[in-house]
Structure formats: structure tokens, C-alpha cells
């Protein structure tokens, strides 16, 4: 066979090879891909036909040659060998054993998480919304869950490339993980192992916790999505965390319904009736869980009741005029907060929250047995609780008056744990309350805004319903290590590693070279 003919054969193979590579990587989506693949494919086939048609006789001769037979044998044998290795690798990848040599098992799930995952009955799907669709650490974490159960699947999605998905699931920030189990789902905004495992526990729980929101006193509407002061976002946040939200018209009920896991009083504009107040009190006496959001100039009837439970509502409004500097002409009635008390709700919480139109709420459990009250949030030292409400709301002026006003930092939320026995009640167990001095804190605008009100509020709800079955997993990391040198030892290290070892090797090389010459 002539050389030019073998050239045709080789070229044909090259063309076909590049057609296949282009096809595998581009999938032939654009016209350029199609043209490139087609051109290479046609050229390849054409070359091969030309090569073969150079004379079937010659081809037959080549085929019958010993070397061709051996060559074909080698190719077939190699492909078979490769096939075996591929199968081996495929099986190996599916049944891989893992040895985590880090001292704290950083790259393995804790026993609690493994238990949770192994007990899954249905498919669990996790979708992580990460910037650019890339986040190796989160991928590692999620793949660890999938490792322990074939029921777990996960994917990483770039919310900017799939905005419709992000919109559908109400994704607001990067690194949010949506955990889906059957019809239940929840969002995890800080995807640590602890939070993801707890989310899995929440969505797989058989009975749902019921959040009862009291209505009938001019509260902002739970279904109001449009107005910035509506509460639809709060409702969505609750549903997302797998709570059932129920509106309760307490005025027409003899008592708080039995199925309520937590009762929410969300910014009543008109006073509660006496029998409503009694219902709330007896609910608390029986170990109830209450979330109260009571803005300034409302809810006077709650003052004495809450005081019994260690919470003191201030008859004031918090003003922070330093904030006003950045906000244009206003009295400064939207203080920011980033100082948090030591409590389960605010554990690891470092973000800023905003409290528009809030009153002060102080912990006042001194001398009352059985009560533990913690001030959750404090506004900045430059803020104060303005008691001259007429001045603020009618004349539009506010100034810190040393004698009557409450100097900052002003507490604006309190959490109370009440041991009923120690309080002298007949029942065992405990009641829990969280009181915020603002309702706008939980409004659509602030929950969906740039501050972290949603997380704080949902933490509070979570603590109230006392999710005792949730686990706590200590975050693990590679142990911190130090190295200590005296300056001489450091210099010695430099000499040894950078100079001496290479120098000795070089000298040995020169010696060998010199002897050989």
C-alpha cells in the first residue's frame, strides 16, 4: 500500500475522532457545533472510503497480513481490558468505603445525622442554591448525606441561571438549601450539618406543629402579600418550615384550641376582650407557648399579664437618631440591632436586625420564682426609649430626656422560660413566651428585606414550640495547630530545606559527572 493511502486512513480517523469529541462536549446545540461535527464526520468518512476503495484487493491483502491480525488482536484485547477496568471503577465508585483520617472526623457525618438519614422511608431531595452553581464545601456536605442512603439525592443550582426555580422556592440568599420530602419542604439558610439534619427531621416529622395566629383585633393580615405591612411573608416562612398556620378568632372560642403548638398575637390594634385575656392566661398556666408582637400605643391590657410572666412592656417608642443620618428626614423610629443576649434563640446569631416602630421590652423576673427571662435583642447605645409619645406622634419631635426616658441600649425583645411547678401552679412542665415590642419587625417588608429579621423570628418560633427532638451537632474542624521556633531554629530550617539538601544533591551529581568524565 502506498504511503499516501495510509495517510488518508489516518486523517480519516483524526477527523472522526474530533467529530466525536465535539459531539460529546457541545451536544450539537448551536449551528457552529453542527457544522463542525458534520464537516469532520463527512471528511472522516470520505477519507476512510477513499482509503478503503484504493483497492479492495490491497485491503484484503493488508487484512490478511500477520501484523494486521496481531494489531487487531491488541486493539480488541486492550479495549476488553479497558472495559473490565471501567466496570471495576464503576462498581468501586458505587460501593466506596471511606476512611476519614482527620482527628475530629471533619469530613464525615455525625452519628445523629447518619441515624436520621438511614431511617428515611421516602425519597429526600436537597437543592442547594449557590453562586455560580459552585460550592465544593456544600457539595461535600450534601454528598455525605447521599453516601449513607440511596434515598437521598442532591443538586447544586445557580439561582441566577435558573431564576424561575429561585422564585418558585422563594430563595433570597445564596447558599440556601431546600430540603424536600414528599409534600413537605423547608429552607435552610445557613447550611451547616446541624441545620440540614434538623431540617430533615422537621420535614420527615409525621405530625405538624400548628401555629395559631389570633385575629379579630385589627391585626395586619396574614394573607396580605401586597402591602409592606402585611404578614404573608411570615406565613410563608412558617409554611416553609413545615408549620401549619391557623387563624383563630379567639373572641368566639371558649379557650385556646387544643391543637395549637404556639399562639401568636400579631400586633392587635384594638384591645382583647376580657374572656380572651383569660383564655390566653389559662393557656399559659397550662404550659402554653406564646409569641407576642405588641407595638407601641397598643395592647395596654397585656401589661399586667406579661408582668406576671417576667416581661415589662415599656410605654415608649425607641428612637435612634444616629440611624436617621443615613435615612433622610425622619425621627429615627427604625433602630437597628446587632447586640444579642445569650440565649438558644440567638445562639450563633451575629447578623443585623431592624425594629421599626418598637417599644422597649425589658426582662423583669427578679423576685419571681420559676422564671428565667432573657433580653434577646438590644438596640444601639445611641438609641433611647422615648416616653413622650404625644411629642413623637403629634408634634414629630423627640429628644432624650434623662429623667423619664430609657437610655440605650434598649432591649426590644424578651424570651421567658417558666417552670410551672416552681411558680406555684398545679401543672408540671413549662410555659414559654417571646415578646417583641414591634409588629413591623415581622412585616412583609422587613422579613424579605436585607436584614435578618426572618431568621430571628423563625428561631424564636422554633424555640417556642420546643423542638426537643432536634439535634445539636458541634461544628468540627481540623484541630488548630501551632509551630514554635526560636529564631535560630527557624534559620536552621531555612538552611536545611532550602540550601543544604539541594546543595548536597548537587555536589553528589557533580562528583558523579567528574568521575565519569
Amino acid at each position, binding site marked *: 500500500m502506498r504511503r499516501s493511502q495510509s495517510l488518508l486512513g489516518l486523517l480519516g480517523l483524526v477527523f472522526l475522532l474530533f467529530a466525536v469529541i465535539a459531539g*460529546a*462536549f457541545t*451536544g450539537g446545540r448551536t449551528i457552529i457545533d453542527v457544522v463542525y461535527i458534520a464537516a469532520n464526520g463527512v471528511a472522516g468518512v470520505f477519507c476512510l472510503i477513499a482509503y478503503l476503495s484504493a483497492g479492495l484487493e490491497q485491503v484484503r491483502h493488508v487484512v490478511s497480513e*500477520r*501484523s494486521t491480525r*496481531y*494489531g487487531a488482536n*491488541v486493539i480488541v*484485547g*486492550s479495549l476488553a*481490558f*479497558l472495559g473490565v*477496568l471501567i466496570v*471495576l*471503577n464503576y462498581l*468501586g*465508585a458505587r*460501593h*466506596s*468505603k*471511606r*476512611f*476519614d*483520617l*482527620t*482527628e475530629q472526623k*471533619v*469530613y464525615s457525618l455525625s452519628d445523629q445525622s447518619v441515624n436520621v438519614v438511614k431511617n428515611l422511608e421516602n425519597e429526600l431531595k436537597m437543592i442547594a442554591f449557590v453562586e*455560580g*452553581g*459552585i460550592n465544593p464545601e456544600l457539595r461535600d456536605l450534601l454528598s455525605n448525606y447521599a453516601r449513607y442512603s440511596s434515598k437521598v439525592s442532591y*443538586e447544586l443550582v445557580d439561582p441566577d441561571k435558573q431564576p424561575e426555580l429561585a422564585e418558585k422556592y422563594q430563595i433570597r440568599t445564596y447558599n440556601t438549601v431546600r430540603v424536600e420530602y414528599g409534600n413537605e419542604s423547608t429552607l435552610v439558610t445557613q447550611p451547616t450539618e446541624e441545620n440540614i439534619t434538623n431540617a430533615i427531621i422537621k420535614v420527615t416529622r409525621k405530625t405538624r406543629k400548628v401555629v395559631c395566629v389570633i385575629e379579630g383585633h385589627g391585626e395586619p393580615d396574614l394573607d396580605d402579600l401586597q402591602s409592606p405591612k402585611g404578614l404573608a411573608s411570615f406565613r410563608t416562612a412558617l409554611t416553609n418550615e413545615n408549620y401549619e398556620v391557623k387563624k383563630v378568632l379567639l373572641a368566639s372560642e371558649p379557650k385556646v384550641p387544643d391543637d395549637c403548638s404556639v399562639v401568636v398575637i400579631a400586633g392587635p390594634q384594638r384591645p382583647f376582650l376580657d374572656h380572651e385575656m383569660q383564655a390566653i392566661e389559662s393557656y399559659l398556666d397550662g404550659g402554653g407557648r406564646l409569641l407576642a408582637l405588641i407595638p407601641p400605643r397598643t395592647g395596654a391590657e397585656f401589661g399586667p399579664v406579661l408582668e406576671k410572666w417576667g416581661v415589662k412592656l415599656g410605654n415608649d417608642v425607641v428612637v435612634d437618631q444616629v440611624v436617621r443620618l443615613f435615612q433622610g428626614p425622619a425621627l429615627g423610629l427604625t433602630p437597628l440591632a446587632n447586640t444579642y443576649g445569650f440565649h438558644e434563640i440567638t445562639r450563633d446569631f451575629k447578623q443585623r436586625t431592624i425594629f421599626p416602630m418598637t417599644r422597649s421590652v425589658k426582662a423583669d423576673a427578679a423576685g419571681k420564682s420559676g422564671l428565667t427571662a432573657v433580653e434577646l435583642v438590644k438596640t444601639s447605645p445611641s438609641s433611647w426609649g422615648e416616653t413622650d409619645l404625644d411629642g413623637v406622634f403629634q408634634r414629630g419631635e423627640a429628644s432624650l430626656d434623662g429623667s423619664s426616658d430609657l437610655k440605650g441600649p434598649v432591649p426590644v425583645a424578651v424570651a421567658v422560660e417558666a417552670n410551672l411547678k416552681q411558680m406555684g401552679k398545679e401543672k408540671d412542665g413549662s410555659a414559654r413566651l417571646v415578646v417583641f415590642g414591634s409588629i413591623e419587625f415581622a412585616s412583609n417588608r422587613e422579613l424579605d428585606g436585607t436584614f435578618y429579621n426572618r431568621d430571628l423570628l423563625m428561631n424564636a418560633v422554633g424555640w417556642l414550640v420546643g423542638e426537643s427532638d432536634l439535634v445539636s451537632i458541634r461544628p468540627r*474542624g*481540623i*484541630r*488548630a*495547630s*501551632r*509551630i*514554635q*521556633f526560636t529564631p535560630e*531554629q527557624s534559620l536552621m*530550617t*531555612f538552611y*536545611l*530545606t*532550602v*540550601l543544604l*539538601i*539541594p546543595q548536597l*544533591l*548537587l555536589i*553528589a*551529581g*557533580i562528583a*558523579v*559527572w567528574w568521575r*565519569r568524565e
Partner: protein
Amino acid sequence: MKNAFTIAGKELRAAFVSPIAYVVLTGFMLLGGWFFFNLLNRFNFLVQIYMSFRSPEVQSRLNLNELVVAPLLGNLSVVLIILVPVITMRSFAEEKRAGTYELLLTSPLSIAEIVIGKFIGVVAFLLIMLGLTAVYPAILLIYGNPEPGIIAAGYLGLFLLAVSFATVGLLTSSFTDNQIVAAVSCLIVLLLLYVISWPAETAGPTLAAVLRYLSLTEHFSEMVKGVIETKDLIYFGSVIVLALYLTHRSVESVRWR
């Protein structure tokens, strides 16, 4: 097997009487020392900075494994990509050029013994090479307290990576009588295996998984983190076995071509 060791010994001696071994070792240790010393310096600098900032939280995250050992091994792996082809380029190409290839093939040795012998020779050389770098973790363990488990896993990864590189080098060397061609084609294959997973983040899920699996880096970086998975061992084993098998076939082909 005795014959294979004889060949290995001969290979190793040949390496050490030629200047290549010394150039490679000197260069490797010079770069390694430079990396190590500077990473260590940077680590101390960071520790001092955060001590002066009084941020205990950041301090508790500073550790020698992540800030010194992992980048050191990563850098050494890149240097190996360049140096291993230089070590292996001679193995068959030099014999072909010098005309000793026929002698070797007509000797009573089996082809498997020849290939395995040369393989063992290269592995022994790599062991010496990586053995010399053990001085770095030794210094860390003497003066500091890194986690030894992670270092061990990382070194195992680096060793398997180097051996995989070497088998690819043997294969390309068996194809040609030109050492430059052998070294450069090995370098290209290794670089390709190193970066093949780059488009994975944007590719479809199946293709991404395949590309990621093919990439040497993915398997290596797991081990550098301190995680040894059987699938990574199987992957490295497969690369080594496949390259040796193909080398065997390539050497054998002289007999019938």
C-alpha cells in the same frame, strides 16, 4: 520476579550515574524547600497577625495541615507533572536509540519482566524523591503539632499520583525512540488528566461526573484533605495497571511489526 528486580537495579544505577537523577533531585528539593519555607513563614505571619488582632475564633481555625501541608503537596504534585516525564523518558526511548532494545528483547527475559522491572526502578526512584521531602513534615512534627493522619493520607495520595504519572511516562517512552517526544507527550497527557475536570461545573450531570472521575486532581485532593476512599485507590490502581498493560502491548509489538 528476580529478573525484574535485576532490571530495576540496573535502571536505578543507570539513573544515578547519569546527571539526570541529580538535576531532577536537586531541582525538586530546591523547589520543595522553597515552597515549604515560605508556606511556613506565611503561616507564622498569619498566626502573629491574628494574635495581635485578638481574634481567637480565626486563630482556632489556623492549622498547619490546611495552610502548610495541603498547599505544599499541591505544589509538589505540579512539579511532579513536569519532572516525572523527564525521569521516565529514557526508559525505553533511550534503549531504542542506543540500539540495546533488540538485545533486551532477545534476552531470555519475558516482556512482562522487562516492563515490571523498569516500573519498579522508577518507583524506587520516586520513593527516594518523596522520601527526601519527608524532612518537611518531620520538621512540622518536631516543632509543631499538625494532625499526622492527614499528612499520611496526603503523602499516600502524592505517592500514588507520582506512580500513575510514571506509568504514563513509561507508556509514552515505549512508543518512540525520541526522548523529547516521549517526555512532551507524557507531559501533555498528564496535564490533560490534571485539568480534565475544569468544564465539569458547567457540563451536564453525567458528563460532569465522568470528567470529575477521570481527573487525577479530584482523587488526589480528597486524600490531601485526609480522606481515603476505596474508589480513589481503585482509580489510581486502574491508571497504573492500564498504562502498564498498554506498555507491555507496545513493547511486545516489536516482535510482530
